[in-house]
């Protein structure tokens, strides 16, 4: 009886700690790129310091990036991006809070590449919109890498394009994310 109790207590502690330690994966160096292809100009930028957390148990996934962290090929583009389009000082962050819909079908303990259907809310420029996309979860050597590509419309996020630059800035922007995640040690 006493022995059983100890075993039970042990199991309880072991159970909770192992859950706590292994379900969450994160990175602070997630790579987020975007591409805009307009007739006169292609715009491309990259942010290499995105924060991303994945909870493998619940399938919750979350991104947060600083808009000022986007780097462009041209300094002036970067300036205009921050100043005139996304208004980085008013809206410093972009965030995504979502859920892997088919989370139970992904075996995080087994190496492989899995398709993940993700649905959630994306906030940019103070506007929040529901988005849904198909990404991949790649598991190799205890590491998880998540990738996803999707398109957004700037008009959905109230990012205005002046008529003068209609041929240079496209309303449809492709966003591509790639985050190698590590186990979160708390």
């Amino acid at each position, binding site marked *: 009886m006493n022995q059983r109790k100890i075993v*039970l207590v042990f199991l*309880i502690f072991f159970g*909770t700690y192992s859950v*706590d330690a292994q379900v969450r994966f994160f990175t602070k160096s997630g790579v987020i790129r975007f591409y805009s292809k307009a007739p006169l100009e292609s715009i491309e930028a990259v942010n290499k310091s995105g924060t991303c*957390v994945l909870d493998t148990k619940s399938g919750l996934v*979350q991104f947060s990036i600083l808009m000022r962290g986007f780097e462009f*090929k041209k300094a002036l583009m970067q*300036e205009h991006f921050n100043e*005139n389009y996304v208004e980085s000082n008013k809206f410093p962050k972009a965030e995504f809070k979502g859920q892997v819909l088919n989370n139970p079908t992904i075996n995080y303990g087994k190496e492989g590449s899995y398709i993940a259907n993700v649905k959630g809310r994306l906030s940019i420029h103070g506007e929040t919109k529901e988005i849904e996309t198909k990404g991949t979860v790649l598991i190799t050597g205890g590491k998880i890498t998540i990738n996803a590509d999707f398109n957004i419309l700037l008009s959905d996020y109230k990012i205005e394009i002046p008529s003068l630059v209609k041929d240079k800035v496209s309303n449809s922007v492709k966003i591509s994310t790639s985050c190698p995640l590590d186990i979160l040690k*708390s």
Partner: protein
Amino acid sequence: MQKSFLIITVITLLGTIPVYAQNDTTDLIASMIQDKPVKQYITNAFKSSRVINGHSIEFIGKGVLDVRILHRFGYVSEGFGNLFGLDEASMRMGLDYGLSNNFSLGIGRSTNKKELDGFIKYRVLRQSEGPGSSPVSIVWVSGISVYTTKWADPLRKNIFSSRVGYYHEIIFGRKFSNFFTLQLAPVYVHRNLIDSVKNSNDTWALGIGSRIKISKRVAFVMDYHPVLSGKQSATYNPLSLGFDIETGGHVFQLHFSNATGMNEKEFITNTRGSFWKGDIRFGFNLSRVFTLKKRANIAQ
């Protein structure tokens, strides 16, 4: 047995509930990772590297070539016969280049006195926020000018150094908000040769530059250089008021001013009209930037 089972159940619940509660929260990042505040530079204090005539605390950026075409016209008061001064134009064509984000240099030539000028500009301190931040930007500018018109006085020996002038300034500027920027810049101008013993070779002025942003792409700008000492006789303090209009890679600066000179030596020591007596000219600065060196680090 039943009692102990109950206790174990309670422990189990107590032990696990907080874990699940954490899992349920939708803000994973906020609950798990504390964001450390980072130092961030303040950008876009002005739209251009010049307020109007004088340098601003803004830089054009590394690897960027700024082609600047400046015009100053005649007095608006000349009326319709002279198309409000537009019939006479004085021009400066210039090239600025950014060697780094904090260091740039430029050359230019003005039709006025057929003058060549060049400058170097260095940012000592950059306004920022967050840990270790600075409330102001400090910029140092030094320049030289040489006029190349025919030697006017045949009785005096024509030596090169007589045509040379220098200026040095330190600009202290702060972007107080998106709406308002102010900078103060003590400027020292030295001319090797002047036209009268009554005047001084050395002139001190205080540059006051300010921007009021009206919309995302339009701003009101003011550029005033009161001369503090060594004022040349029959000259006035240069005052310019205008608008910056930004369209893609261009910045148009349209303004009204009493100054014709388009380098520091010239507009500080040789502004011949009084703004308040109506000696006002229309002028514009056109700036077009070209990115010569694109950043490589964003490639996949």
